[in-house]
């Protein structure tokens, strides 16, 4: 099968049941995509499938055939970071950082659908786990990212 990841095309002839997460990490080398739970609970493995935030640990690689897959490695535009990445740096969100790629991918997708999220939208739309507890800064960064994206900051 052919897979399109961050604009590159990959050929894969292995087990079609392999979760997309493990394909991305072991086969295609996109290690920014993280393994946290394997049951779509924590969101560390979040990637974009045709722009939609998707937990890749439970999705068979075959289900991603033909889709545009974006990983954290493909979120920035070259050296220009995505507003969410920018805001994450500005608010100094990360601690261990392990969940943050998934958090950023989840929120970047949410922002496409809802450019001006309220706190309630954040509460219901973002369910990724951060074990370090960076949520308080994350919320600030989310609002900052929304403002950046609207060209306000």
């Amino acid at each position, binding site marked *: 099968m052919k897979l399109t990841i961050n604009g590159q095309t990959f050929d894969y002839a292995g087990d079609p049941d392999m979760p997309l997460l493990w394909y991305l990490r072991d086969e295609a080398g996109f*290690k920014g995509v993280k*393994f946290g739970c394997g049951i779509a*609970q924590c969101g560390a493995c979040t990637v974009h499938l045709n722009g939609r935030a998707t937990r890749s640990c439970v999705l068979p690689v075959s289900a991603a055939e033909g889709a545009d897959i974006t990983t954290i490695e493909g979120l920035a535009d070259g050296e220009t970071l995505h507003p969410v990445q920018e805001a994450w740096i500005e608010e100094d969100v990360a601690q261990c950082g*392990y969940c943050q790629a998934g958090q950023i991918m989840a929120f970047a997708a949410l922002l496409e659908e809802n450019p001006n999220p309220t706190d309630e939208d954040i509460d219901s739309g973002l369910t990724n786990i*951060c074990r370090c507890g960076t949520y308080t800064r994350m919320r600030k960064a989310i609002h900052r990212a929304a403002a950046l994206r609207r060209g306000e900051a």
Partner: protein
Amino acid sequence: MDGAPVTTTRRDLFRYAAASGALVIVAPLAACSRRAEDAAGVREAQSSAIGPFVIINSDETIQIAFPNPEMGQGVDTALPMIVAEELGADFDKVSVVQMPLELIRGEDGEITWKYIAQGSGGSYSIVGRWDGLRQAGAVARELLIAAAAQEWDAPTGEITVEKGVLRHAASGRETTFGAVADIAATLTPPTEAPLKPREEFSLIGTPQKMKNARAIVTGEAIYGIDAEVPGMTHAVMARCPYFDGTALRVDDSAARAVPGVIDVVKVDRPPHGGPYDVQAEGYAVVAENTWAAMKGREALNIEWDHGPFADESTASFKAHCEELLQGEGQIVRNDGDLAGAFANAATTHEAYYWQPYVSHAPLEPQNCVADVRDDEIYIIGPMQFPSSANRAVAAKLGRDRLSIKVDITRLGGGFGRRLSSDYAVEAAVISDAVRRPVKLLWTREDDMRHDFYRPSGMHHLRACFDANGDMTGWAHRLASASKYYRRPNLPETEYWKAELYQDDFPAQLVDNLQMEYFSAKSGAPRGSWRAPAHTANAFVVQSFLDEIAHERGEDPLALRLRILGDSRDLTYENHGGPTFNPGRLAAVLRLAADRGGYGAPMAPGRGRGIAAHFTFGGYVAQVVDVEIGDDGTLRVPRVVAAVDVGTVVNPNGIAAQLESGVNDGLSTALRLAISVEGGRVITGNFNTYQLMRIAEAPPEIETHIIDNGDPPAGMGEMGLPPLAAALANAIFQANGKRIRELPIDDQLRA
């Protein structure tokens, strides 16, 4: 360090090396003394040779190596700040790099640190590296000054340094670090360099953002799980789910038939009752990729016996603790005459509290790469004490420790779990068997069911007051399964030391005080969990104080303050000793109360609670606001904290760790417990171990810092212990419900 020749041949001398325009400085550091570093298996070295690195490039960029593993606690920025301060560097031009683990064999034949201690734990990175890293930075600065002095034929004493620029005011000349670095590299380093007085600090104490933020948000940061070596295979293991159990029958034929599976390897269990070199007996499926290894594991057919703890459950363990508390335990502290105080008391107070087992659950599950060869071993993985992994692998495979190279990655969380090296030992055993490099991956279920849990236990608290209203008696009785067990030469009479800290508040503040311990039996492995027993004890003690105050009709803050009294040093032999100053605890209580609006009238269903604790040399008080809906829904809109950890290196890092402690404490108090049934842990993933998500996290957390210039303490752990008590005290104010068992779970819905 780009192959720069950093070598030491003799101790106690400064060394230098010039490499392609780079100045590398290796400085000896004062001896680091710390009991907890015994855990690393590296003997304490007096005056050992050591050295953090400084590389100055001709383009004025500077690279500073941080020696301790980074797991989110911010040492990758704070430790280089200490070096950069003394160096006089422009911190904006500093990049940071993890220093690899460096061990040497000392003159007495023992393995010791080559440059500096390299473990992360016990909130000790700042405390332990403070003197040495300052000296390293100062030596580098003196060399650069000497180089400029030589260039200008000026006295070194007349040259000043600021943000990477050297100046000689008398002649009006100036130059940069980069311009003189190559000359500095040829000079003989001074044997001692003067340190800046605190008043001259211009970097330490200023808020700095994390240096590695960009690598994290772009997915480029390398964690253990991302490490690779050529020819690497992948392994997952089926471990015996039953405490100390073993396999009765193993059929691996189906597993071996899974495409991509290379081999199945047995890893022996640790000896019954003996130290854990690994966690449990297990069978590793080695495969070409992770997924094949997982499928292979599913195809394993293993019948396990249920082990010596087959009848243990959460309920049975609780009943066991309750029963123990009916009897008499080991009196581990006995001040004054407790019975007499109670006999003469005007009022008495009593309560029981329960703490469950909790799991570390770092978001990056355990993993490790091992490449075992005939004459050398390479290990890379996420470890708080990579030197422990070196020692443990050496012991397991009978190798010389210096033939084992251990590299440090960033850690996807630690929380104490990665003080243990069991996963490194497993990886080494597997690689040794298959003679190929192996990356061992634990799944989430493996991680949660084979943790070293924060001990569970039941606490019985009693206090009494005399007719004057003074607290005259305090008794803390605890039945728990200690984390100090299965250790060589450690009798059960010592188990209490990890669970009751004999100098903890209110010891020495009340004349008649007893601490009594009951060593409960449990098969669940136990270990150090962020702020270990302080999390349990601060909840219990600070909640009970609140109960007492309400029963007495006294304000809970006022009660604390009058027990604490004025500033003075008391003996403190536990974490963060040797002294504890109750006046500093009172000061953070007052500050948090003031900034948090403590004592203001609250609307129905709202509460504001306060608690404080001293941990690892740090003093933290927290004011927690709660709103409780009619249906019992709990919301925490705001937490205000005051922190005194002495001299602050990075206030931004202090705030981050405080926020982390608050959110960790809240998450744990709300819903976290490990359940045991039939001699095994049944909680296995985040669907049943429900870590808090953003919706429940306080949108506002304020950190107020007191910095009186006392010696620095760390900040990794002390943000956590007061939280659960301040929360419970707020809940009581909001709706009159007293939380005596954690987690809170659905107790508010009753």
